[in-house]
């Protein structure tokens, strides 16, 4: 994939994409012979908003370079916390995403399921807190930046 960052070859994969994300591709990619568990998280556009409107789509905006370098840091921190993990993939969509569409996918494999769940939850929480990404809510006749804004946190403090 053009623009995606594969770190340790075949083990870590981060990507900021303006094309639709494929949880199926990430789940298959993360499946490893030594791993018995794959946990895949999809963030999807839901119809309720921070601004009280019926959401029809979201629009994500960032610097791809800065976002991917932060994703690399987040994945690296997960590796140091769970050395037994198999593969880690984190893909984030940018641009407009319709209701029901996928905005972010995390896929993690591990020999045993407990670590895969823990790491997937850590990864999505840390992506939301630490990666520069601005979300605009779009409804019939209007749009606004999400009102749930908070400062970008450092990866090490998560």
């Amino acid at each position: 994939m053009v623009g995606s960052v594969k770190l340790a070859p075949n083990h870590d994969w981060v990507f900021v994409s303006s094309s639709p994300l494929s949880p199926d591709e990430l789940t298959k990619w993360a499946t490893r012979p030594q791993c018995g568990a794959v946990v895949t998280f999809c963030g999807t556009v839901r119809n309720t908003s921070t601004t009280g409107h019926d959401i029809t789509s979201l629009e994500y905006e960032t610097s791809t370079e800065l976002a991917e370098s932060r994703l690399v840091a987040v994945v690296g921190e997960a590796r140091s916390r769970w050395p037994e993990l198999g593969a880690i993939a984190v893909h984030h969509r940018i641009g407009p995403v319709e209701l029901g569409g996928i905005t972010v996918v995390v896929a993690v494999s591990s020999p045993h399921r407990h670590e895969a769940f823990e790491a997937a939850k850590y990864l999505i929480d840390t992506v939301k807190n630490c990666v520069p990404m601005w979300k605009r809510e779009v409804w019939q006749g209007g749009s606004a930046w999400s009102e749930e804004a908070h400062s970008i946190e450092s990866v090490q403090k998560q």
Partner: protein
Amino acid sequence: MTRVLLLGPAREAAGAGHGEFDGDTVGAVLQNAVTRYGVDFERVLAVSQIWVNGNAAESGDHIGPYDEIAVLPPISGG
């Protein structure tokens, strides 16, 4: 001239995704950006983080022509 990257609400307030400004510290460069973009941008800048080449930076940090300053308002990933 130092390149300044303006993201999300900072881009919207400035009306531009990036600009080039004189100045030998982060603060001096950004003051020149405020002069060009005006009060809406200044308001967003006040609550933003500043990164230089991908790392958190302070107002007094010295800056060269190959550095890139990024203005990162609060995010809304929640």
